[in-house]
């Protein structure tokens, strides 16, 4: 029920031209460059642990996941896997568009070498999880909507009841209901003691899911340990890099006014959403809020550049419908925020006229035009509103008068 990497090294032979491989094969003389994708990777994901991999694009995270899944072999070292492994490297790889949903599930079961009773169990689990009707499952997969396809693919990928799950950012697909469901499925497998190795660019997700994490940088482990420590180290590295980039572009741009504008636009991508907190009389981030309570929301962002920006935020329902949204741009003067360092936006709702239900926040940082998104945190900080004093129902309270009742 674990994955252990023992001194993994992966090098790729890079041939400039296809015939170089032929010459090498025939003459036995080296005709390639060696690209080191991973070096000196050794750690163990323990049984029942959820482990996150973070790092920049091309750092080697996906290569490591593929080695963990067994689609490629390490050049040196070995991976020791224990338990049934399911790899969610790409959902729906291997599905045949002409075949029905059922046949594709059967095929996935066969890929795991299941037959007879094992295949039956697999089918039952996959069809139940996919929530697709029998009529749909009998149709060829090419007639499915992308959402339906993803549901089937995820269901088929996790239906072997894996003890080890390898996930490559496959979570951010499908509609919200399904995203939540697939995340729940992973959490449920985790509850039951499954080991999860998981790679994501979404640091929020890594923070909330993983007990430990590793930061991969240039094919090596830059930091490994408790998620919070590793993610913080990675974030501060990113920050330093941005500041460095900004300083560089500012230096080179100063004599040339035309280039200074381009430096400013590249520097605009340097704002990060740090925190969102909700406060009521009951405290900070209360489990539930009463309708018409006095509520304040506090958003903290950090800017690493001197470029102007706006903060937009909205209360949304789980189905992504916006209930109420506003932006610093919509204020009477609409001046953007500016300056390196921390910024805070605090808004008070003196009488929160939401009625009973589940709500979430979405926060975006936009450039001064209000079009380009610099950072976003969608559907975070869920909160529950309870309408205990009134019998009216719906999403929100509308001002009203009973004019005539005859």
């Amino acid at each position, binding site marked *: 029920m674990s994955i252990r990497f023992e001194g993994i090294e992966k090098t790729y032979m890079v041939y400039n031209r296809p*015939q170089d491989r032929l010459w090498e094969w025939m003459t036995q003389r080296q005709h390639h460059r060696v690209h080191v994708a991973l070096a000196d990777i050794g750690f163990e994901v323990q049984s029942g642990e959820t482990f996150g991999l973070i790092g920049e694009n091309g750092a080697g995270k996906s290569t490591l996941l593929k080695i963990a899944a067994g*689609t490629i072999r390490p050049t040196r070292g070995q991976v020791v896997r224990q338990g049934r492994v399911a790899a969610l490297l790409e959902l729906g790889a291997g599905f045949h568009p*002409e075949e029905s949903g059922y046949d594709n599930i059967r095929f996935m079961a066969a890929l*795991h070498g299941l037959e007879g009773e094992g295949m039956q169990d697999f089918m039952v689990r996959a069809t139940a999880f996919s929530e697709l009707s029998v009529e749909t499952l009998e149709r060829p997969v090419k007639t499915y909507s992308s959402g339906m396809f993803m549901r089937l693919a995820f269901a088929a990928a996790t239906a072997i009841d894996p003890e080890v799950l390898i996930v490559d950012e496959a979570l951010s697909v499908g509609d919200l209901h399904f995203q939540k469901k697939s995340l729940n499925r992973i959490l449920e497998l985790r509850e039951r003691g499954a080991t999860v190795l998981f790679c994501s660019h979404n640091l929020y997700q890594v923070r909330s899911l993983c007990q430990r994490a590793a930061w991969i940088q240039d094919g090596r482990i830059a930091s490994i340990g408790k998620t919070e420590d590793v993610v913080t180290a990675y974030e501060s590295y990113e920050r330093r890099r941005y500041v460095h980039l900004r300083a560089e572009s500012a230096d080179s741009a100063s004599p040339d006014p035309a280039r200074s504008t381009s430096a400013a636009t590249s520097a605009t991508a340097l704002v990060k959403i740090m925190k969102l907190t909700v406060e009521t009389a009951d405290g900070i981030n209360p489990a539930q809020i009463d309708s018409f309570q006095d509520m304040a929301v506090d958003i903290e962002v950090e800017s690493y550049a001197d470029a102007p920006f706006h903060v937009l935020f909205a209360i949304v329902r789980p189905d992504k419908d916006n209930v109420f949204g506003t932006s610093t741009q919509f204020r009477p003067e609409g001046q953007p925020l500016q300056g390196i360092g921390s910024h805070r936006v605090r808004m008070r709702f003196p009488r929160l006229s939401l009625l009973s239900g589940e709500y979430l926040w979405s926060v975006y940082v936009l450039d001064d035009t209000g079009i380009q998104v610099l950072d976003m945190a969608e559907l975070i900080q869920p909160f529950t509103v309870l309408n205990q004093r009134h019998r009216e129902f719906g999403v929100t309270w509308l001002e009203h008068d009973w004019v005539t009742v005859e």
Partner: protein
Amino acid sequence: MVAKRTMTHTEKNAVAEASAQSRHPRQLWVLWRYWMAREFKTRYAGSVLGLAWAFVQPVASLAIFYVLFGKVLAVRVPGLEVDNGYLLHLLAGLAIWLPFTDAIGRGVGSLVAYEDFLRKQPMPAEILPAVSVGGSLLVMVIGYALLLVLSVAQGVGPTASWGWLPILVLGQVALTYGLTLFLSMAHFLWRDVGSAVTFGLQLWFYLTPIVYPLSQVPERFHAWFLFNPLAALVLTVQGCVLNMPVPAGAPWAFALWVLLLGGGGWWFFRSMKPALGEAL
């Protein structure tokens, strides 16, 4: 206590290795069967005739060659003294050639077609050429069935030498699989192979005594035909089923070719396999 602990450790390692390394042969067999089922279900999906195409195609090629060479050009087969001697000769050749070219034609591109899949899903790549070869077995069965039925109808056999057929068929499957392994991997590494194979198969067809009997070729060239693996097989089958005279050494040449192409293809595939998952 210590001994017990080390034992469980090695046991665990063994389990881990088994799941990570080669799979159970039974699992491969299950996967191959399902893949074959998918292959046959999807190959003719959306067509009216469906699986009937598997019969129509070989019979149509047979008809074309029969009319062209047997009727128009009136090729005769010395040593096969029955009414439709040429038809039987042609059928013996096509029963071998059609499944062979079908397997190679589909198999060459099989690794490239599933390149992405191979990178995303851990599975044994050898199964892909095996599916191409498996897909050609239906044509093979149809071809041989026609050949045997017509031979009996024409009064040629059955004879005791028909007993060799299963071994020859197995040899053909092994040879085809080896060559498909080789060509699919070579095509994966060098895309020129696919184009060369299309042309090469055409040339190969006319270098094999299928539409013409070997006796039409000057005697001094006969030994050269043994350097053609398929010619060696076709000649052996003609001798075995139709009792035609076979150049000495044809069965041995074929056996050698099976070992050479089967083993060589397997070896080449295994030695180049690490290149499969890797694309930067």
